[in-house]
């Protein structure tokens, strides 16, 4: 039976940027066993040679012309901002470095 430990869930929560409580981590870990068993059914079939489908419709080459169209005004762009300054989005100090 496949399963995840509390630590495994904690690692995933960190990757997903969710600060879970200890209780949540433990609960999820215990539920994951049966969930993973259920989804692991996808491994039961012999899928050798089967192509993966990522799009249900066989559409290709959808592009748009390289033309500028009006954007949002800065007021509209910032309308949902939890904090702003000088027409920019204000965020707390960023610890990590950019890619």
């Amino acid at each position: 039976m496949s399963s995840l430990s509390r630590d495994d869930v904690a690692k995933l929560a960190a990757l997903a940027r969710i600060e879970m409580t200890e209780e949540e981590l433990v609960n999820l870990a215990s539920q994951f066993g049966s969930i993973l068993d259920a989804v692991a059914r996808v491994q039961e079939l012999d899928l050798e040679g089967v192509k993966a489908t990522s799009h249900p419709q066989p559409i290709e080459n959808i592009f748009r012309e390289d033309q500028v169209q009006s954007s949002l005004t800065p007021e509209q762009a910032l309308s949902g901002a939890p904090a702003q300054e000088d027409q920019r989005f204000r965020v707390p100090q960023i610890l990590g470095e950019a890619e």
Partner: protein
Amino acid sequence: MIKKTAAQMSAALSSGEMTSVALTQSHLDRINEVDPKVKAFLHVDSENALAQAAKVDGERAAGKKLHPLAGIPLALKDVLAQEGVPTTAGSKILQGWKPPYDSTVVSKLKQAGVVILGKTNMDEFAMGSSTENSGYGPTFNPWDLSRTPGGSSGGSAAAVSAFEAPIAVGSDTGGSIRQPAALTGIVGVRPTYGAVSRYGLIAYSSSLDQAGPFGRTVLDTAMLHEVMAGHDPRDATSINAAVPKVVAAARSADVKGKKIGVIKQLQGSGYQTGVLARFNESLETLASLGAEIVEVDCPSFEFALAAYYLIAPSECSSNLARFDAMRYGLRTGDVDGASAESVMNATREAGFGREVKRRIILGTYALSSGYYDAYYGSAQKIRTLIIEDYKKAFTQADVLVSPTSPITAFKIGEKSEDPIAMYLADVATIPVNLAGICGMSLPAGLADEDGLPVGFQIMAPAMQDQRLYEVGGALEAALVSKWGGYLIDQVPALGGAK
């Protein structure tokens, strides 16, 4: 007034028998009256609704040619962006957010002159089958207020079922229109993937999501379907083809000589007796109308649920990453010494509900290096098999059918502690989404054991949506004749119904 069908309301508006303002007001009154019990709406937009209604009345009086649905009230699932109107996707993380833009679906509704009454409740980010996962409390089934209306479009379904609106818009990723339609005794359609623009539809699982119509009748649903559908250059997955003529199909509604394929895998144990009884009766009804009933075998459907619960969480784990407290939505934990990272973590913890977190973690896991091939990769291959099974089945039948949901409306709280039990609610609807084809649920009657609505599901190939309405319309007509009225007429009175 509110008990009329949308088609009847449209005729009444055209003839001048009533105004859109009066029609809208009577629906707002109804909402005031019953929504404290049903809780279908998250936000009622009376001001804009009445203004839109007045505008349509003015245009009609000036002799302007109007769309058949102009001036008709509608309930909008809170998953679609509507400019200046609170849009939450049923989540606390978007509490108070007012989009600076309209989704394409909303633009089309506005262009047609439809009156948007307000935003309806839903499972958070469309994840769920009961609307119990809403960050704002559940919606209650008008047939029995101790039960769920299904989900995730439970608010829209309940609104139509409770006569708070004649038509509504929902979204369907794994059955979230069809299943609530079945549980509330109305019609719901999930159009072909790509037929309705997803621009402005808050994404849950991008390759499975599709917005679609609810109505109390097949014709009403068709009328809304035609307004919503159409190519959109803002959506790269949008199909560039003419909208199938669904209204004409709903009106002609003829099944003579049509082959109806019953999917072997979507019945049997796990399906409530009463559900199967109504389903089989409907098959007999269709046969009596001249259709030929055949059985089709879709062996890969057994794995559909597993594939869905890998693909959808994977895509959602990525789609929901943008909710990070930086540009919009909830921000918590911004105390002295906080960092962007800590605020992100705290906000997502506080703003997302249990089911959403569960699926994000599951999706993150399924996409992780080392697990991709076994989980997400395999699920996408199962998807190919499902598409092939459908292709083969559609050479044997014009439409495929099954019960929409294995069970009738369940009690609030009954399944909310058991995620897998909840996931099983979608076992019959999920294959349609994985294949990207279209599906309809229409009322097949009430289950004997509990007197609750049962839904009959019809499936058709991609861009053959009109077949749904053709067959659905015929079945509906025969059943209405049998019942002496629409099934929804039997819904218990919630208050002083007009």
